């Protein structure tokens, strides 16, 4: 039997969840024994080269590119996992959610302390090549169907490990109290 194929991505996240995945330490060697990685920053494969079994999503959707990537993952993966607070509820990027997008852009590019130098022409970036910003940061499951959720900021390495093992082996996932945390 061929090994299950795993893809990962970071949308509007900080890569902390990916770092936590690496935090499974030497167990990563066991992991590559049982799964094959496809599109993922871990092996630097940029595009899906085959249908995957498990897609792991870090980060929520803050722009149109995030939405496209997420939909691409949904299309190419049998199972999608929201990994971490940002994927599950928008996380810290979603702190902007109560603020109108115009105000956010003005603060970031025109009025904010870091915008004073370097943007003398007072431009709001609008190049057609740039992703379009969404009105708010969306949790992944409010854009596509998500099958499993692993909370944490970042999720504990043990939680990621246990969840992957359970998925790959088909065994029931038992979550000890210590591993389900939101920070």
């Amino acid at each position, binding site marked *: 039997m061929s090994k299950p194929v795993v893809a990962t991505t970071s949308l509007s996240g900080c890569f902390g969840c990916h770092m936590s995945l690496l935090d499974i330490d030497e167990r990563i060697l066991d992991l590559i024994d049982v799964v094959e990685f496809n599109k993922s920053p871990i092996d630097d494969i940029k595009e899906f080269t085959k249908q995957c079994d498990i897609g792991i999503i870090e980060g929520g959707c803050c722009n149109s590119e995030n939405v496209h990537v997420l939909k691409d993952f949904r299309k190419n993966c049998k199972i999608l996992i929201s990994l971490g607070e940002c994927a599950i509820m928008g996380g810290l990027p979603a702190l902007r959610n109560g603020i109108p997008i*115009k105000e956010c852009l003005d603060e970031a590019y025109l009025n904010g302390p870091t915008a004073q130098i370097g943007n003398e022409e007072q431009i709001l970036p609008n190049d057609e090549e740039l992703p379009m910003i969404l009105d708010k940061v969306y949790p992944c499951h409010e854009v596509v169907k998500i099958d499993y959720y692993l909370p944490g900021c970042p999720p504990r390495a043990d939680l990621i490990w246990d969840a992957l093992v359970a998925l790959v082996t088909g065994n029931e996932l038992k979550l000890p109290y210590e591993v389900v945390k939101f920070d």
Partner: protein
Amino acid sequence: MRTIINKIIEKFNRNEARLMDILLDVQAEFGLISGDAVTLIAEGLNISSVDVQQTISFYHFFSQKSRGKYTIYLNDSAVAYMMGRADIARTFEEECKCKFGSVTEDGQIGLFNTACIGMNDQEPAAIINGIVFPKLTESCVKDIVNGMKEGKSVPEMMGELGDGENSNKLLNSMVNNNIMKTGSVLFSDYKNGTAINKLVTMTPKEVIGEVKASHIRGLGGAGFPTGMKWDFCSMAEGDERFVLCNADEGEPGTFKDRVILTELPNLIFEGMTIAAYAIGAKEGILYLRQEYHYMKAYLESVLDKLREENYLGKDIAGKIGFNFDIRIQFGAGAYVCGEESALIESCEGKRGEPRNRPPFPVQKGYLQKPTVINNVETLCSVVKIIENGGEWFSMMGTKETAGTKLLSISGDCKYPGVYEVEWGIRIRDMLEMVGGEEAYAVQVSGPSGICISKKDFKRTICFEDLPSGGSIIIIGKERNLIKDIVCNFMDFFIDESCGSCVPCRSLPLILKNKLQKLLDGNGVMSDLTDLENWSKNMKAANRCGLGQTAANPILSTLKNFREDYEALIKNKEKDFDTGFNLDAAVAASCEAVGRNPQI
């Protein structure tokens, strides 16, 4: 300002429990309750400012900002929309050049939405500076707004006065009674004072016995046996007792109390007096909704007359030691105050948040003293019970629901109005009576009641079948049940929750958004299961009747009109749809930076 406010506070003996009256007077005086006024009231009552603000901000008709020299509250109940409310609202907005929820730039005219004002039989209707303008048309809206621009007073803009006592100069109202059917209890011939004269020849025990024998149940909707309530209260420990009359009728679609208050106010006060005699109360309060403020002078005059005739006051009807008087307590716009314990809180000057039970009001009610609270209609019926005997009353109606009931019938029917019928009337017969045979659905007992379809038109109105507080809304085929009715009712519950219980504060909006998802064409079959399961939690988890029934519009239509919901789901096989719309989500940012959205 200080002098005026101090005078108002003095008028109510610096009593914190009279905060509602103080705020009503301050608002009447200044048109708003400013920050300075809040500070002065807090000082005068020796409470903190936030305690004053918590009461102000709870009630719809209190305002800390000016709502205009002319303040227009336009009813936004479902029936108002059926009768053309949308056009009226649009005309107001066009004529005033201002949107609902705001005041014109010159500060002259304020446009505001308000929940059902008890005029469903003559919609669209608005309250303008306290005066009710029923049956609005686009041309009369134009006249009204022009009048305002010319600086006319609101009474100057009034049209023809209503029937019956509505044209009494103390009422001076354009409202019509629309009494379509009189029955043998409330509208039977009666000479004022008859029951009180008889009352004083009886012992309180005999009075309670007679009420028990009548088998009358509370007519506000809950149906608790009145005699038992009085008995419990008379036995409860307490040095003082109170009688409260619930005239807050806020259930959308009910307006029968309006008609009783207009035509039969004597009965209400006599009924309260009978209750007072039975339980030994010295003080009574009529809790009247702010929407009926136009009745104030009229009702006060009725009370004065009763005092003159010695039917209120000291040694009533010559009975030495039988002392009782009544004051009117106005609400300030809160549906939940129709819940008896919330009503008590409001009478004590607080936010209308329902209390935890036990203790029940009969044990610890107003000011923590044993209190009887009855609906207007119940107290009126009691007068007739004392006059004619309990047995007479118990012969009418059904096995478990004795007597008659006033139905407030509105919506898609030929003859909206008030009907006194015996309990046990069949829905089909009722529809025939009101010219509503074509009904697609009937909302029995308002949004908190149930919505029934044709297959249930054989059912009867009584506590053993379809209980009703009196609101009957007839919904014709041309209506979109989910969009026009269910969503309107959910908006009502979203606004009217007191905000205390988590599920009642939080869930109605979640449920409404789910309905919107279905209406937007993004629904899947599991959304219906979610709606049902989540709605059930409202009943299971909340403290008071409002919260427990706030999902009824969804639950009862899901049960009786499931096909309407399923019709909204295009692809029944689809198992998931988030309803996410990328075009809509990027629109604002693209506009802000000046680029064309490229999806």
